[in-house]
C-alpha cells in the first residue's frame, strides 16, 4: 500500500464520518490470479471452479445478439456445473453499467466488452482489474485434453488481446473487413469491384449516374467504419508497420506518407461521391438504405450480413471485396484484406467466481461452443475448424474467397482503439471532418498527430506497446 493511497483512504474515512456513510470501497486490488471460492482442480476442471458458485455473464447485445450466450455457452456451463446459478445480463451500454461496478469491486465474472460504449482496456489493466488469460490458453482444451487451448485457435488471435504485454482479453470473433455490395445489383448492371483507385473512381461515377449513392458510411455513430478504410488503405500502401507505429504512438506516425496518401484518396471519394446526409445517419439506417438499393459500397466487417438478415430482401446478395489499391507502388497487393480477431471477452480479477469466468471462456473456445456461436451469429470464431461443414451464406462465401485470394497479405488490426479511447474518439471526429470536406488530408494527419502526441505526453494514460 502506498503512502498516497493510505492518505486517500484516510481522507475518505473522514468524509464518511461527516456524512454518516460507510467509506466507499475504493479497495485496491493487486491480485491477478483467480479469486473466490474454488473447487478441486483437475484435468476436467483445470481452474478449480467451485461446483455451486454462481456465474454472472454480461453480454453486449449488438449485431451478434445474445442468443449465442443464452442458448449455447451458458447452458454448456450449467451442464458442467449443475449446482451453479448462471446469471445473464444483456446490455448495450457496457461502460455505463459496469464502470461503477468495477470501481466498487462488485463485478460480473465474464464480460463481452464491445459496442460503441466499450470500456477502456488500458485503464482496466493499468488498475489490475483484469485477469491475465495466460492460464486459459495454457489449459487443456475441452475437446482434447492433450492439446492446449492456445493450439486450438488461429495464429495471431491471442496477440490481438494483448494489453500491457499479456493476454487480458479473449478476442473471440474472426472478422474480415472490406467493401460490401449487392452482388446481384452489380451483376445486373455489369459492375465489377475495382482494383485500382482510378477504376474505383470510374465505377463510382457509373453508380452515381444510375442514381445511387456510390459510397456511404454511418457518420453519426460509426465513423470508425470509415477510419478503418483509411487505415487499411494506408497499410496497403506502406505495409503493416504504418499501423504498428500508430499503435505505438511513434513520432510522426500519422503524418507518414502512406497515411497522407490514403487520407487524400478517401477525401476525394468523400468530396465526389459521399452524400452529406450520411454524417447524420446511424449504421442501421445506412445499412437499411443499402438493402433498399440506394447505396453502392459500404465499408464494414463480416458481421454485416447477419446483422441485416431480417431486413435484407431476397433480391439482395451480400458480397465483400478488398479495398482498391491507392497507388501503383503499394506495398501490399490489391487482394490484401484485413482479418482480425475482435470482440473482447474479459474476466475481471475481482470477480467473485473468476475461475468460473475462465472456465466459461474455455467453453467458448471448445468446438461445440464455437460452432454454436457461428450457428447463432453467422460469424466465425478464432477456433480452428469449428465452422467446417456449416453451410456458408453468400456473404461468408465471398469472404472465404477473399481470404484465400489474400493468402498471407493480411492487414493487421488497430490496437489503439482499445488502448487509447481518447485518440479513438478524436479519430472519429476527424474522419467525419475529412470525409465531409471540412478539413484537408494534411490537416487530418496533422491534427491526429497532435492528438497522438498529447496522449503520449499524458502521464495519466498508461502506455502500451506491440511488436507487429
Amino acid at each position, binding site marked *: 500500500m502506498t503512502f498516497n493511497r493510505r492518505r486517500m483512504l484516510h481522507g475518505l474515512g473522514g468524509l464518511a464520518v461527516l456524512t454518516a*456513510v460507510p467509506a466507499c470501497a475504493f479497495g485496491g486490488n493487486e491480485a491477478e490470479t483467480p479469486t473466490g471460492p474454488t473447487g478441486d482442480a483437475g484435468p476436467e476442471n483445470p481452474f478449480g471452479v467451485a461446483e455451486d458458485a454462481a456465474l454472472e455473464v454480461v453480454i453486449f447485445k449488438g449485431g451478434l445478439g445474445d442468443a449465442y450466450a443464452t442458448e449455447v455457452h451458458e447452458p454448456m456451463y450449467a451442464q458442467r456445473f449443475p449446482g451453479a446459478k448462471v446469471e445473464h445480463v444483456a446490455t448495450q451500454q457496457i461502460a455505463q453499467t459496469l464502470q*461503477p461496478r468495477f470501481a466498487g469491486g462488485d463485478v460480473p465474472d465474464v464480460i463481452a466488452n464491445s459496442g460503441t460504449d466499450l470500456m477502456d482496456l488500458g485503464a482496466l489493466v493499468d488498475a489490475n482489474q483484469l485477469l491475465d488469460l495466460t492460464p486459459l490458453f495454457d489449459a487443456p482444451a475441452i475437446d482434447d485434453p492433450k492439446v492446449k487451448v492456445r493450439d486450438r485457435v488461429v495464429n495471431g488471435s491471442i496477440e490481438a488481446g494483448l494489453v500491457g504485454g499479456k493476454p487480458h482479453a479473449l478476442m473471440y470473433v474472426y472478422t474480415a473487413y472490406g467493401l460490401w455490395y449487392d452482388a446481384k445489383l452489380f451483376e445486373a448492371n455489369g459492375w465489377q469491384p475495382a482494383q485500382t483507385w482510378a477504376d474505383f473512381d470510374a465505377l463510382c461515377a457509373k453508380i452515381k449516374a444510375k442514381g445511387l449513392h456510390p459510397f456511404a458510411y454511418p457518420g453519426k455513430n460509426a465513423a470508425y467504419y470509415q477510419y478503418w478504410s483509411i487505415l487499411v488503405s494506408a497499410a496497403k500502401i506502406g505495409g503493416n508497420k504504418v499501423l504498428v507505429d500508430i499503435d505505438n504512438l511513434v513520432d510522426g506516425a500519422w503524418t507518414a506518407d502512406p497515411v497522407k496518401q490514403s487520407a487524400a484518396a478517401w477525401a476525394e471519394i468523400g468530396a465526389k461521391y459521399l452524400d452529406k446526409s450520411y454524417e447524420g445517419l446511424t449504421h442501421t439506417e445506412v445499412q437499411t438504405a443499402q438493402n433498399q438499393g440506394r447505396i453502392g459500397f459500404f465499408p464494414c466487417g463480416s458481421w454485416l450480413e447477419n446483422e441485416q438478415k431480417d431486413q435484407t430482401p431476397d433480391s439482395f446478395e451480400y458480397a465483400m471485396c478488398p479495398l482498391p489499391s491507392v497507388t501503383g507502388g503499394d506495398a501490399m497487393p490489391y487482394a490484401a484484406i484485413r482479418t482480425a480477431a475482435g470482440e473482447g471477452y474479459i474476466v475481471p480479477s475481482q470477480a467473485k467466481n473468476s475461475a468460473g469466468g475462465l472456465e466459461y471462456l474455455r467453453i467458448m473456445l471448445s468446438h461445440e461452443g464455437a460452432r454454436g456461436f457461428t450457428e447463432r451469429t453467422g460469424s466465425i470464431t478464432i477456433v480452428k475448424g469449428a465452422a467446417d461443414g456449416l453451410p456458408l451464406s453468400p456473404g461468408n462465401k465471398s469472404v472465404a474467397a477473399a481470404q484465400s485470394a489474400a493468402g498471407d497479405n493480411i492487414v493487421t488490426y488497430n490496437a489503439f482503439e482499445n488502448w487509447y479511447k481518447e485518440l479513438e474518439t478524436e479519430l472519429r471526429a476527424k474522419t467525419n471532418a475529412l470525409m465531409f470536406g471540412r478539413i484537408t488530408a494534411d490537416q487530418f494527419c496533422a491534427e491526429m498527430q497532435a492528438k497522438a502526441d498529447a496522449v503520449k505526453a499524458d502521464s495519466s494514460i498508461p502506455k502500451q506497446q506491440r511488436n507487429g
Partner: protein
Amino acid sequence: MKASQRALNGLSHVALAVWAVTVILPIVWTFLASFKTNTEIFTDPLGLPATPSFDSWGRAWETAHVGRYLINSVVVVTAATAGTMLLGSMAAYVLARYSFRGNRFLYYLFVSGLVFPVFLALVPLFFVVRNLGLLDTHTGLVLVYIAYSLPFTVFFLAAFFRTLPDQIAESALLDGASHTRIFFSVMLPMAKPGLVSITIFNVIGQWNQYLLPIVLLSGAVEDKWVLTQGIANISTSAGYQADWPALFAALSLTILPALAVYLVFQRQIQAGLTTGALK
C-alpha cells in the same frame, strides 16, 4: 369589433396555430410511422401507411415491456413524490417559520443543491447506495429521488410557507395545539395550492429522470427498470435490429399514457403550477 382588431386576432390565430402544429405534427407522425414499413418511413416521410399493420405494436409491447416499465415508473414516482413532499414540506416549514441557530446554514445547504450538476455525484452516489445495500432496488432509487428533489422543493415551499399569515397558527398555539398538530391540520391545508404545484413539478421531474436509474439500476434487474430506461433501450436496440416501426410503436406506447393522464388532469396541472409559481 374594429376591423384592425379582427385582423390582429386573425394573425394571432395563425401564429398560435403554427406553434400548435409544431407540437402536434411530430407526435402524430410517430403514431403514423408505427404503422408503416421501414421503406415507407425512410423514403416517404409525409405519406400515409399503405397497408396499416398493428404487428409493430405487438413486437414493441413484447420486446419493450412497456407495461412493466410503466408500472415500475408509477410505483417509484408515487413513492418518491410522496416522500419528497412530506420531507420537503417538513423541512421547508421549519426553516421558513422558526428561527434557530443554523437555520440560514441549513436553508442554503438545501438551496445550493439546485446548482449541483448531478454528473458530479454519480460515481460517489453509486457507492453510497451500494454500501447501504440499496443498489438495484426501488427503495434505493426512491430515496435518491427524494434527496435530489429536496433542494427545489424546500426552496419553493419555504417561500410559500413564509407568505402564510401568522394569526391562525398563533391562536391554535394558544389553544394548546402542539407544533406538529398545527403543521398537519392548520398550515398544510393552507399551503395546499403550493403543495399541489410543487407535487406536479416533482412528478414530472421524477417521471422524466434518466441518468439516476441507469446508474442505480444497472445490475441484472431489467424487470425493475423504469420507463425512461425502457425508451433508451428501445432506441438503442432499434439501432441494432433496424425495426423502426416497432421503435415508433414503443415510443407511442410511452407517449399515450402521458397524454391520457395529461388530458384528464390538464386543468389541475396548469392551475396547480401557476398558483405555486405566481406566489
